[in-house]
């Protein structure tokens, strides 16, 4: 099953960092995943995001307003795969 990952947030330094961490985590796990980055306010509202960056995995908001470490993201993604 491929993972559907969204990085919510545009422009700010933490948003770019989160995207980098997500890519690293996906690579470590060696799974198939689509990663989309968006700065659309309607998307924020859809997931009840209040502070960027937000991480959405398979349509669930799993982290908001912070950048989890790569190892934490690996755990998050692995949980989704089980």
């Amino acid at each position: 099953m491929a993972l559907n990952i969204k990085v919510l947030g545009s422009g700010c330094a933490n948003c770019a960092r989160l995207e980098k961490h997500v890519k690293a985590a996906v690579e470590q796990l060696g799974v198939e995943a689509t990663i989309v980055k968006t700065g659309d306010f309607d998307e924020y509202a859809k997931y009840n995001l209040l502070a960027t960056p937000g991480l959405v995995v398979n349509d669930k908001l799993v982290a908001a307003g912070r950048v989890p470490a790569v190892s934490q993201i690996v755990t998050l993604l692995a949980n989704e795969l089980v």
Partner: protein
Amino acid sequence: MNIISLLIGLLQSGLGNLAAYLAAHVLLCLVPAFFIAGALTALVPKEAVTRYLGRAAPKFISYPASAIGGFVLAVCSCTIMPLFAGIYKKGAGLGPAITFLFVGPAINILALAYTGVAIGMDIAIARIVLSIAFGIGIGLIMALLFRKDDMAHDAAGPDAFAASASVPRASWLLLALLVFLLIAGTLQVGLFTDSYAQITLPIRGTDALQATLNRLVPFDAARGEEGVTVQGAVLIVLLAAIAGAAWRGLNRVDEGFNRWTTVALALAATTLLVAALRLTPAAGGLTVAFPGKFFAVGAAMAGIVVLARRGFEPEQVQEWLWETWRFVRQIFPLLIVGVFAVGVVRPLIRPEWIEAVAGSNTLVGNVAGVLFGVFMYFPTLVEVPIARLFLDLGMHRGPLLAYLMADPELSLQSILIIASVIGRRKAWTYVGWVALFSTLAGLLYGAWVDGVSAWLILGGTFAGLALLALALNRLAARAARSIIAPQVAVPETVPVETSEH
């Protein structure tokens, strides 16, 4: 030939302004302020504030929380816009969202500290008080004007603001120590500025160095230029060293500490201590005086180091330092460019022009200040040296405040983003109210500067706001009656829907 000497003169003026700002205004105020901003972002859970901004929160909580929440949440515009959209679409509604949007930029710790030190504590305080009062006012007005709209929102979606959290005690303590560091370094009271010890170091040639500096950066105190002292030169060298060490030590601090992290932090502490000293070059040597703030700054920093080691996980400290450095990297380069540009422009502007437009507290002067703020876009904090320039060239403090209120609130770019969230009609209505209230703020503050009693002004302000609220309430009530009328017809349509089954 003439053009070349003119260009050299402008370049000198730019560099002089830069050096004077780095040495005089930046260190004891901006360095702690950046650390505070980083701590607010990294160590204070956002839910501690956002839980007061949900749909269920009563008005007398959600409006003040929006106004004061800006202090914690609105350190940079990338946190303002998502939260603004969130409060509007899923939280307390349009009014508190607008209040948050208006007050946030005015009370963020960086702008506040910098305004206070570079221009004056009076303007900084006026900016806080008036922006909170008017922010709540504009929020209430918008909520009343677009009441129908909020009713529609109330029906939609789950509450995004249900989560709550409290601020850990260690975070409170750290913030208190940082604020003390900021105040001890910048507050001009005898306790901190009086000298308690003095030594003369046998370093020769510092007086000659001062003479050279004066030649390199010629200054004219009458035009508000400051020049560079020997102490300033030492601090600038230290700042450059911090920049180098921080680049290696803090850029990747989110992944772990390294030796350069320690070097950068030690250099930053040294710089603050040197900045708190008073160095006077003399023929025989360098006289070093130890004012109260030297000891206060030292004690505060020692406390911060102990607390950071004992009270926090290493990851939290990493996060704090990373956020701090992120703010520095994002804001500081633009600030340097801005300050340099202000210095270059300074000799080209004739004081008579400024005085003619905004030399006294007139309606025209205040409107000019607001318009300049709206149509010029300056990066965060650069509005402060620009305001300082205007002040030096003879601008009245009233129009100056009007400019300072309008500039961070409104730029064409931010208006477009706001419009994308709440729609064009509401966005331009908001712009209109902000322009009006900023002008009013300038006029009122200017009147106070000119000697009108503060009680009269405050009383008048609140009476005016209350009258406005009352009038709008009447209007809204009338509008609500006309909305209710068609709603009475709703039951008639219900059978139609059911009959379709």
